[in-house]
């Protein structure tokens, strides 16, 4: 347990401005690109973060969860809109990414749902988000916080 926490800290230290470095807990050939999130109003409302996760290795990788000091309950969610136009959100479960493939977390689909914020998400700041993979692998990325009305990583 202690080892995992130390590794997380190390991973956070190794991470700079949107560029992610695979953590030392396990070799995961996955990179995170174009991560972004929206500022929150206070701490009561959940936040959401978006990114593209690319498998750069020769083996499939499976994303199983998230961890961040920003939120007590981070979870990969999926928004679905049914034939009647009604949108709903639920936990997405495990996400397998084939070698060379990528998965996009983007508005209206998959997203990193940040429930129970520990502090407000302030425009212009960043926060570390760790992606947890099967077999103990981790990738930590520093996620920029954009405005509430942001539409994408360039906004």
């Amino acid at each position, binding site marked *: 347990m202690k080892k995992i926490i130390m590794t997380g800290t190390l991973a956070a230290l190794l991470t700079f401005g949107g560029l992610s470095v695979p953590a030392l807990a396990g070799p995961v050939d996955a990179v995170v690109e174009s991560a972004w999130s929206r500022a929150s109003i206070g701490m009561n409302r959940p936040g959401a973060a978006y990114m593209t996760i690319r498998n750069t290795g020769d083996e499939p990788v499976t994303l199983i969860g998230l961890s961040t000091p920003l939120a007590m309950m981070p979870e990969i969610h999926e928004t679905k*809109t049914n034939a009647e*136009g009604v949108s709903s959100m639920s936990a997405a479960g495990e996400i397998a990414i084939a070698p060379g493939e990528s998965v996009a977390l983007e508005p209206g689909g998959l997203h990193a749902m940040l429930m129970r914020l520990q502090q407000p998400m302030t425009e212009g700041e960043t926060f570390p988000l760790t992606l947890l993979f099967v077999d103990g692998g981790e990738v930590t990325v520093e996620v920029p916080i954009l405005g509430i*009305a942001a539409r994408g990583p360039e906004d």
Partner: protein
Amino acid sequence: MRRRTIAGYGAAGAGAIALTLFVGWWRVDGPGAPEPIGQRPMALTEMDFRLTDHEGNEVGPETLIGRPTMAFFGFTYCPDVCPTTLSDISGWLDDLGDEAKQLNVVFITVDPERDTVEAMAEYVSYFHPAIRGWTGPEGQIARIADGFRAAYERVPTEGGDYTMNHTASVFLFGAAGRFVTMIDYHEPREFAVPKIRRALEEETEGAT
């Protein structure tokens, strides 16, 4: 003997399943179904509701008559669909430029318990200034949603919180209050602005 008993249970079981399926059909698709959602919204002139806008003004269907209207249901605790739609709407309004000044643009909460007038005021302030936020008593929200044929549902989440499932389409009405069309979530962006123009050009006459 024993075999027959099992067969008997089997038949009873099959009967029960058939009955369950029938009851399910009756309630979901059959004559006992609630009014299907996804049917055409009423004209604003036929609707009846009293709500409050984010500046504390009392509003109703008559507030919208006389100018074309773009309206959307959501809630401010919505982290994904609602801010995305509101920023899409803000983008469309920017694209329309001066034309957008003729439009009523309304964001109606389906979560009045948390979305007070003050919460709506703060939330809409982050988006295009034309967007108005409407809230009100749960019974009145139910009436406007019914008029729009919009659906919403409170869904409990872990830790005693809740989220709302809701219709995510953007509704467009002409100046006389007649429903024109809607912009579905995930519809290509290029389709949205021409649809809004259709609502802007809708004849003022001929509304029911």
